């Protein structure tokens, strides 16, 4: 079974704070993704990567940075968190043309 592990699972930060969400996959997949899920909006792609050192912009990238340090690790950075970034964040991985495997999500609250 493909494995995608996210940490932390829950995070509370203050407006203007600095937050890093971590994701590790042990599937040897080339593609990794960060999504946010909000009621009424479904899953929206923030950033994705197709290999170490690569970064592609998704559909809702504003306010987010990401970095793929290795094939296994993909980080999402919020350098000046805002309440609008309160959301459930999913990391995922896949091979091209194949099933996408998701982590269990990180619930971020910005107060």
């Amino acid at each position, binding site marked *: 079974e493909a494995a*995608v592990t996210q940490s932390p699972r829950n995070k509370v930060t203050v407006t203007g704070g600095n937050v890093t969400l971590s994701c590790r996959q042990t599937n040897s997949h080339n*593609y990794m*993704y960060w*999504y946010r*899920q909000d009621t*009424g*909006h*479904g*899953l*929206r*792609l923030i950033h*994705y990567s*197709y290999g170490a050192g690569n970064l*592609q912009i*998704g559909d809702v990238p504003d306010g987010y940075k990401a970095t793929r340090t290795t094939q296994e690790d993909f980080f999402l950075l919020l350098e000046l968190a805002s309440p609008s970034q309160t959301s459930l964040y*999913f990391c995922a991985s*896949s091979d*091209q*043309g194949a*099933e*996408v*495997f*998701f*982590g*269990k*999500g990180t619930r971020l609250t910005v107060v």
Partner: protein
Amino acid sequence: QQQVRQSPQSLTVWEGETAILNCSYEDSTFDYFPWYRLFPGESPALLIAIRPVSNKKEDGRFTIFFNKREKKLSLHITDSQPGDSATYFCAASAGTGYQNFYFGKGTSLTVIP
């Protein structure tokens, strides 16, 4: 522009009934259509998927009906069970080059015992 649209936003059915979840898409180059199911506190997980070479894909109580001409598909859940209560996401992707899945906004299904 929303690439993938789902309806209804929420759906309630009685146990034993057939739930029908609808999906439509914009880009005719899309060639892979998975449905993901999300239970609260869990990961979205692949439920069933179809490619345009077929107009129907069946897996137990779950069936996808696909209409390429109208760019529509639907997920039918027969003999619905309370355990089917979840949010269902339709997605689409084009398999060439990078892989970007476009997800719909989801349908929240509630099955009443």
